[in-house]
């Protein structure tokens, strides 16, 4: 078993706890933006796709990498964009009167 596996397992377990504690406290008001935000964060796989696309090993992997870059980057851009659009719409009664 690679030694890295163990340290990744620690990271996974701890991040799972962090996610659990944070997300169960997100107001139900914001569950739809929550979904699109975590989507955008998850799109960080783009960093792995960039490496594959740019390492230029075989034409196949470059093509696969480029597809993965496009797919995940579209998630990242679109996810942050729509989340912010939704959140801009949430206004409290007080802030509106100002």
């Amino acid at each position, binding site marked *: 078993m690679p030694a890295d596996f163990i340290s990744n397992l620690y990271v996974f377990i701890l991040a799972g706890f962090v*996610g659990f504690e944070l997300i169960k406290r997100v107001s139900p008001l914001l569950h739809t933006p929550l*979904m699109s935000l975590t989507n955008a964060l998850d799109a960080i*796989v783009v960093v792995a796709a*960039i490496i594959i696309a740019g390492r230029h090993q075989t034409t196949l992997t470059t093509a696969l990498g480029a597809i993965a870059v496009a797919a995940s980057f*579209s998630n990242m*851009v679109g996810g942050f964009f729509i989340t912010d659009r939704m959140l801009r*719409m949430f206004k409290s009664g007080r802030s509106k009167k100002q």
Partner: protein
Amino acid sequence: MNAPALQQYLDFAYIAAVVLFILSLKWLSSPRTSRWGVLAGEIGAAIAVIATLFNPELIQYKWIVIALIIGAGIGIPLGMVKMTAVPQRTALSHAFGAMSAAIIGIAEFYVGTAPVTRFEMGEIGLEVIIGSLTFTGSLIAAGKLQEILPQRPIVYRGQNIVSLAVLGSALGLAIVLVVNPAYTFLFPFMVVVALVFGILLVTPIGGADMPTVISLLNSYAGFSAALLGFVLNSKVLVVAGALDGSSGFILSVIMCKAMNRSFTNVLFGAFGQVTASSAAAHEERTVRSASPEEAAGILEAASKVVIVPGYGMAVAQAQHKVRELYDSLTKRGVDVQFAIHPVAGRMPGHMNVLLAEADVPYDHLKEMDEINGDFPQTDVALIIGANDVTNPAAKTDKSSPIYGMPVLDVEKAHTTMVIKRSMNPGFAGIDNPLYYMDNTLMLFGDAKAFVTNIVKELSNSHG
């Protein structure tokens, strides 16, 4: 990938990204700080992407740049869809995310810089299977929500056994590959079988159960990204995947609880099909209906009104008209609140987003537990396109399929008015005894049209 060399250069950037991602979720938790949350996430993602572009392993930027431009070109329009299309957009983005995770795993399999060990083969196999089935499953879900595919559950005898057999063969192929990593020709078959399983998994589920399915697929997409992090030894992927995975999981649990159903029932219950037929058997009972004019009169006379929006408001896109109704009642000094059931609509938080879009202040949107105690002091409960979430049978009738689901106590209001087009049932396919109660008035019509008429009546009587 030459992971250790890469890590040394980029690790601090990635650590910064991880911290910002966590802060992003933390700040999202309340509407006051939530936009900071998006900013933190954006900065974190930008740091990680830019740092990666400096990675010395990269020797050719052409395809990266082209792909980034294409990605932005797809992403921006997908970020501008109408609010009512958010569920299918979410499903589509899970498909994209899972697809890239699967593709990266596949590329890694074919050109891993180190020879693939058994342990790594196991990680890659699992990662690619989850990524692939999430990809096709999410596409089917998006198709159903966009109504390109039939919404009803498509079932046949023995379907669960067939699906499980398909999943079994995918896992079986993965195990063979672990035992003998040299049989690389089996790998494409494993991918195809996993893709097929994704289709089989989601097709039999009814369109209305898609929200729960989307959340589950969300957690699959997250976990496949985390697994990819294990494969590539990239901790930023492990963290982002774990955050996304736990988010999807928690949302699906919340939805199942609010519907009083189990995961198994959602995934294998083919809900919305069998039960729909039983509703017709009900004997005829009388209901009282009213015109927009009468409804306006009753609302005008009230001092406290609670509006209960549901799926019908979303379908009719009536949220802006509802906002006008809210304004004109508020102007007359009526206290207007909104009661938001956790599974009203077809997505967690669906009603909140629509009403926020229409500029209703969020402090007037009350959660079920908060407002249920207020109904006895409420003059009028105005239900706009909601049905199941107001069904009192959930509290009293043990034989009802939704028995035990927590519902809004609308029948305790002095008068209850229900805007819907017919006596047809809602998502659960069952009759609603509320409609036959003495203090209930049915307002038949399309939600948008009917609310428009009420608003017109109110402004006439005002002028």
